[in-house]
């Protein structure tokens, strides 16, 4: 089912919040308005940083009056910024709705600045605007912008694409190593300048389901895309690792030897949460594009009943395996008309709604338990080892409701 109407989703700028943590030597400069600045700071809780590695070049009336001036101003601002932050190696110019509507060409600006900076700092650009991207698509665009800088190489490697929490990444690399995969690399890398190579020997393993454009660009450079469900929950993670290992030519026994204990332990970790979640009815509002994978996990491993699974966009190709694992007849909505969707939620009265922060308290006030989805992109939830924690994120609101007593 496709829906259109008011969307209640962040724009792609939001992904700066986790991308900047992944690459501590990069700065994300949004070229936009006070609204953009306010969005990023509201999503990020910026105040805890002494000086965050992201900011907004706020357009003023003078910049709107003439693009020549705007370009000059941007150059000046970037120079000042880089002077103050000498540790920055890569600068991302992030386009916003206003910069796109006035047609401020950040691609050209990046080229120009790269010339001026003569290799001291690399300048890249991508769009995080709300008219082009939702929420997690910002990461897709950022990775896409890094792709041309990846050196060509046909050496065999497994390339995990999508931001992972550092410890989760270490763990996965270690596990793949134990299976016998020697070269496992990641995009985005921890150091923005140490980009992995890509070429015919590269097998791309997507850690996130929302990286459509990046996946296609890597395929165009000769890489092979591994298709699998995504590494959420025990089953998703198992199939994901298995697919990767198989694609790298490993023998089933070697794979199984590593996976079996993980799977067994993961299932044990999920079990207590399954007790809370089983039989409970679930609605996922469109938000992070993780919805289908989460729905699959919560249904298959936690026994939840799927009332409606919303997603801002549905890339049928990247999500083919997830779709196949969802029970027949699952109601999937693409796009959003938030008012209608809320009407359906009220009518269905599910036991749990996964939604954004703007909707959570109002739904709670109507007596419907919620889990806010933004936590899912900030928390380490990938892999068998995290499956218990992932389930806990959903069982906690229900456990809490049972706990509270006011009479």
């Amino acid at each position: 089912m496709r829906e259109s109407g008011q969307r209640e989703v962040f724009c792609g700028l939001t992904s700066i919040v986790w991308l900047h943590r992944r690459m501590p030597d990069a700065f994300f400069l949004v070229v936009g308005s006070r609204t953009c600045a306010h969005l990023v700071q509201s999503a990020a809780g910026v105040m805890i940083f002494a000086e965050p590695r992201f900011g907004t070049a706020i357009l003023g009336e003078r910049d709107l009056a003439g693009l020549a001036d705007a370009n000059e101003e941007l150059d000046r601002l970037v120079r000042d910024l880089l002077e103050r932050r000498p540790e920055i190696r890569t600068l991302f110019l992030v386009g916003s709705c206003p910069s796109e509507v006035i047609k401020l060409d950040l691609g050209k600006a990046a080229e120009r600045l790269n010339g001026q900076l003569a290799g001291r700092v690399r300048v890249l650009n991508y769009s995080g605007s709300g008219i082009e991207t939702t929420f997690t698509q910002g990461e897709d665009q950022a990775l896409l912008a890094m792709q041309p800088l990846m050196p060509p190489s046909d050496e065999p490697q497994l390339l995990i694409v999508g931001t992972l929490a550092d410890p989760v990444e270490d763990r996965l690399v270690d596990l793949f190593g134990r299976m016998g995969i020697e070269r496992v690399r990641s995009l985005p890398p921890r150091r923005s300048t140490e980009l992995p190579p890509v070429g015919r020997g590269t097998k791309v393993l997507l850690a996130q389901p929302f990286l459509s454009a990046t996946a296609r660009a890597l395929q165009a450079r000769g890489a092979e895309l591994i298709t699998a469900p995504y590494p959420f929950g025990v089953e998703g993670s198992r199939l994901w690792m298995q697919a990767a290992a198989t694609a790298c030519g490993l023998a089933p026994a070697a794979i199984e030897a590593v996976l079996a204990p993980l799977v067994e332990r993961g299932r044990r970790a999920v079990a207590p949460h399954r007790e809370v979640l089983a039989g409970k009815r679930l609605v996922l509002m469109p938000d992070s594009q993780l919805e289908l994978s989460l729905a699959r996990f919560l249904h298959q491993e936690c026994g939840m009943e799927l009332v409606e699974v919303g997603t801002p966009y549905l890339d049928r190709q990247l999500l083919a395996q997830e779709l196949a694992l969802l029970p027949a007849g699952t109601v999937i909505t693409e796009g959003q008309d938030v008012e209608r969707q809320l009407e359906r939620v009220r009518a269905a009265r599910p036991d749990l709604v996964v939604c954004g922060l703007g909707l959570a308290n109002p739904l709670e006030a109507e007596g419907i338990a919620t889990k806010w989805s933004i936590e899912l992109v900030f928390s380490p939830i990938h892999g068998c080892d995290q499956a218990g924690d992932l389930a806990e994120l959903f069982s906690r609101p229900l456990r809490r409701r049972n706990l509270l007593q006011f009479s």
Partner: protein
Amino acid sequence: MELTLWTYEGPPHVGAMRIATSMEGVHYVLHAPQGDTYADLLFTMIERRDRRPPVTYTTFQARDLGGDTAELVKRSINDAVERFQPEALLVGESCTAELIQDQPGALAAGMDLGGIPVVSLDLPAYSKKENWGAAETFYQLVRALLKPQLPPPGAAKPSPARWRQEGRRPRVNLLGPTLLGFRCRDDILEISRLLGEHGIDVTVVAPLGARPADLLRIPSADANVCLYPEVAGPVCNWLERSFGMPVVRSVPIGIGATGDFLREVTSLLEMDTKAIAAATNAEAEQRSRLPWYSRSVDSTYLTGKRVFIFGDATHAIAAARIASRELGFQVVGLGSYSREQARDVRAAAKELDLEALITDDYLVVERAMAEAAPELVLGTQMERHSAKRLGIPCAVISTPLHVQDVPARTSPQMGWEGANVIFDTWVHPLMMGLEEHLITMFRHDFEFTEGHRSHLGGAPAGAGLEAYGAAGAKEPTTGAATLAETTTGSATATAVASAATAVATAAPAAALAENGLHWSPDGEAELAKIPFFVRGKARRNAESFARAQGLDRIDAETLYEAKAHFSR
């Protein structure tokens, strides 16, 4: 173009949202892309609102831009009116829509919406900010609704004393409280009660909690109270010009200001001002504990505490007055991000021999804070974080807020009770700081050997011990603190020998300060004699003194020089 890492105020349409969300029966159609819906969470999370803000976003996308975004606006307006049946409709645009110039206001004006009042908002997103947007929205809404009631030009002004002829109590409106404002919810309770006790009724409180129909009753009051000038300034001025309604401009935050407020309101209403003037002093003493708490001997240690103040203009100015006059602090910095009210802040700063800091760059504020070396910071949530980084106690006095600034308990800033709240919230961080230090100081005493922990840190070994520890620490608190503070004043490079021996355990000073200054061994030895809880400040003072003097070495003499310099 301006680099912004963090901003005190959101864009002006967020100000408009504050007005719409504060009221009942108002809906706001906002021509804006999907990302702008983030603003909902400010209300649902920070204010823990149980309802979504009454805002419909058009959420246009790039692919709509080639087509008919105007159609989308009309559809959104129609749907919103049908679904929410508002009593008044606000129509406006955010930064991006402003660029594509669909003029949603004009579109709405051309639609048949069943006669509901429609207010078109023009909020220039590239030059104005949140508070301006709130003030403009409130003004436009009130103006649109009151248009039919406008007295003909040249009509006589209503007498503010007409309540007497009409045989009723005088009445006023409280204008300006909004969601995401600082403690507005509790201030209006306190001020309504205070006015009631003085025989004054409140006609309309707006925007918070008001419906459009309530706004229609504004002219029936005898005067307007401009409770939050950032939001209500323009509307009060307009009501004064157009309806001849006098405006009460004293903001009743603090004892003195609450007295001023009562005197102003009663004299405007031509009440018996003499009786009231006489009564307010006694009333302040009876109704608020601040005056007595501030005079009580325990507060001696507050004398001359260096305090740095930054916030919106209204709260910063009020805080400066309370700090300097009612608590006996020394204000060492005063500033605001409210450019619209910069003049008032400058004037308040001048009275304290300070230069006001008017900026919306938090890093500039943080730097000024560090340079002023305050012992207490009164600021916004951002200053709280800056102060934390600098290790200075802080109390929050102004927006922008965090969820913790919307407490469950009633906790006003205004009126007599507001003064009580202020005393507690400003003084506690100082006391706690001192208490923690004393605990460190006495930690080798046997009472403290068994894991006494801050109640913030973790559970103590035994509740009895905790109680004993706190009580035991209490007595020396006053003694030692008073001694240290009174002998040292604002500078601290003095040898309080007895205290110094008690703290011989403290860490030695870094021989090389970060800025290339050297501490000589005798300088360090002298520094080590200073009680640890003021040693940091002594070091900072000595270093800034040395820098000012162009010295690169700090010895004992320099310390004494600095002490003399700062105790002037």
